[in-house]
Each structure stands twice: as structure tokens, then as C-alpha cells.
């Protein structure tokens, strides 16, 4: 029996984090997505055990301040794309508002640390979301283009090909064939 699953990423992440914190008996307050405040002081030993445990779930505690900003930018972008936020302003304005920082600063920092630009990162995320919609929800490219506010299917199709080197239909075919084998 095969089941196709759809994830609400924000919910999954928050639920895992909450469970883990409770399992380690750490009292906390969630201040934002990917940001919590521990209410009581935890010993270093206790924190280390906690970090190791959440690491195996793909959660990492960030310490470098630059990395914190980068992670926040990524979180805002991923949330914007995957939760299909209807944003009325330009992305640069939106990011600056969300992070309460000047966009040029954010943009330069991002390029310096990640080897890619914010613009490219957004395209990459949109294409990743397109891949998920194409394969697990079996939406047509036209429906996806509309969902992701592309001006036309041709635009999305071209961006897909430019980013991955393959066409959306070839991508669909490859993933379907892989599923048949496994």
C-alpha cells in the first residue's frame, strides 16, 4: 500500500521541537518560528544532551550571529513560498520589514555567507516547491504557475529548465520511474 503525504512544514517543525523540549524537561516560551527562550537556566551538560538529540532530527542551534540572520532570511523565504503567502509588496521590501534591517545589508550578507544571492535562493525554493506539487500532488504546471503567482506558465517552465537543466515533464517522468523501481 502506498500513501502520499503532504506536510505542513511549520506545524511539523514546531511539534517536533515542542515534544523534544518537553522530553528534556526544558520550560520554554516560543518567541518566533525557529526561536525559543528557555525560562529556567539549563546546565551545559543538559543542553549538550538536548542539542545531540535534536540534531538527529535535523534541528541545529545556531550560535554565530551572522548565521542567525541568514537563517531568519531563509525561514522568511521558505515560509513565503511553501505557505503561499500572498505578499502585496516587493520581496525586498517584505524581507526588510520582516527582519527589520536594510535590504542591501541583508542581501550582501546573504551572498557573502551562502555563495548565492537572495534572488537565486527564492527561485530555488519556488522550483523546489514546484517539484513537490508536480510529484506528490500531481498538479499541472498551469495550476502551479497560478498558485505561485507567475505571470505565465512559460515563465515558470523556463525558470524550471534554467534552474535544473531539465524540463518539468522530464522531471515528473524521472520521479515516476524511480517510484516504480522502488
Amino acid at each position, binding site marked *: 500500500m502506498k500513501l502520499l503525504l503532504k506536510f505542513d512544514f511549520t506545524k511539523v517543525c514546531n511539534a517536533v521541537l515542542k515534544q523534544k523540549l518537553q522530553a528534556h524537561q526544558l520550560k520554554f516560551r516560543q518567541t518566533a518560528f525557529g526561536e525559543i527562550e528557555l525560562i529556567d537556566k539549563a546546565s551545559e551538560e543538559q543542553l549538550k544532551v538536548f542539542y545531540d538529540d535534536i540534531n538527529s532530527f*535535523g534541528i541545529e542551534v545556531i550560535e554565530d550571529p551572522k548565521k542567525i540572520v541568514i537563517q531568519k532570511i*531563509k525561514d522568511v523565504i*521558505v515560509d513565503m513560498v511553501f505557505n503561499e503567502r500572498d505578499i502585496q509588496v516587493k520581496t525586498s521590501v517584505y524581507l526588510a520589514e520582516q527582519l527589520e534591517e536594510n535590504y542591501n545589508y541583508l542581501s550582501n550578507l546573504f551572498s557573502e*555567507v*551562502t*555563495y*548565492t544571492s537572495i534572488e537565486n*535562493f527564492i527561485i*530555488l*525554493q519556488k522550483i*523546489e516547491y514546484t*517539484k*513537490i506539487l508536480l*510529484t506528490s500532488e500531481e498538479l499541472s504546471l498551469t495550476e502551479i504557475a497560478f498558485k505561485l503567482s507567475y505571470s505565465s506558465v512559460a515563465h515558470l517552465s523556463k525558470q524550471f529548465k534554467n534552474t*535544473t*537543466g*531539465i524540463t518539468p515533464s*522530464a*522531471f515528473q*517522468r*524521472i*520521479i515516476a*520511474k*524511480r517510484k516504480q*523501481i522502488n
Partner: protein
Amino acid sequence: MNSDYINIALADDDEDDRFFFTEAFDELKLKSKVLLFKDGIELMEYLNDSDNMLPSLLFLDLNMPKKSGLECLKDIKATKRLSDMVIAIYSTSASEEDIENTFVKGANVYIKKPNDFEKLKKVLSEVVTTNWQYHTSGLNKDNFLLRL
């Protein structure tokens, strides 16, 4: 990427291709360590020894004596310990069907070997940065397909 090295491996029987590959990485100034293998047997012996550190990104030439890249790909995908590695096929031209077939068999990247060194640098840098995004942004690696 700043503090960490990326471990990269290349299996290719052509000495010149191995040379240009390492030169390209040297010039790209990405923090990388490159391991080289002359054929598929040598590569698989290294990978199957659990004392060895696994590369996160493996470039495989398709046409190698003794054991071809495609055979290596099959073995790697059938071994759980190795199945997390990102596999880039690094080959001279092939038919559309062959290319699609390597993706179906589990390759993530297909690169047609460029003839010119500057192009090679550009292509390798694109593979590494895309791989890095998958690595650091929690993207689903099953959906990582890139053709260059």
C-alpha cells in the same frame, strides 16, 4: 560553508580529466578536499571500508574500465550507508535516454564534460553551490536533479 570543508571524490580513468578537475577546484577557492580514484573497483573498495570518511559529493565517470560508473551507481544506491551521497555523473556526451536513465537509477546531477577550463570551473561551482543549498536548507534530496 565557511568553516567546513566539503569532501568531494572523483572516479575517472582519464588522467588529464582528473588533473583538470583538481585544478578547477584549486582555482575555485571553495574549501574542498578532493579524493581521486582511477576506476570503479578502486572507488568501491574505498567506499565500502567503513573506516573511511565518505565524500558528500561524488563525481562518477560513466566509461571506466573494470567497473563502469553505472555499475558503481547501482551498488552505491543499493547500500544504505552510501545512499546519502550526492552523485554527479561526469561524462562525455550520451544520448537523452542514457541521461534520463542515470537520473532514474538515482544520480542527482548529470554533467557533460566541458571542453574548456573556464566552463569546467563554472559548472563545478554550480554543482557545489546547489549541493550546498540542499545540504543546508533542508531540501528534499530525492528531488535534487540537475543537468549541466
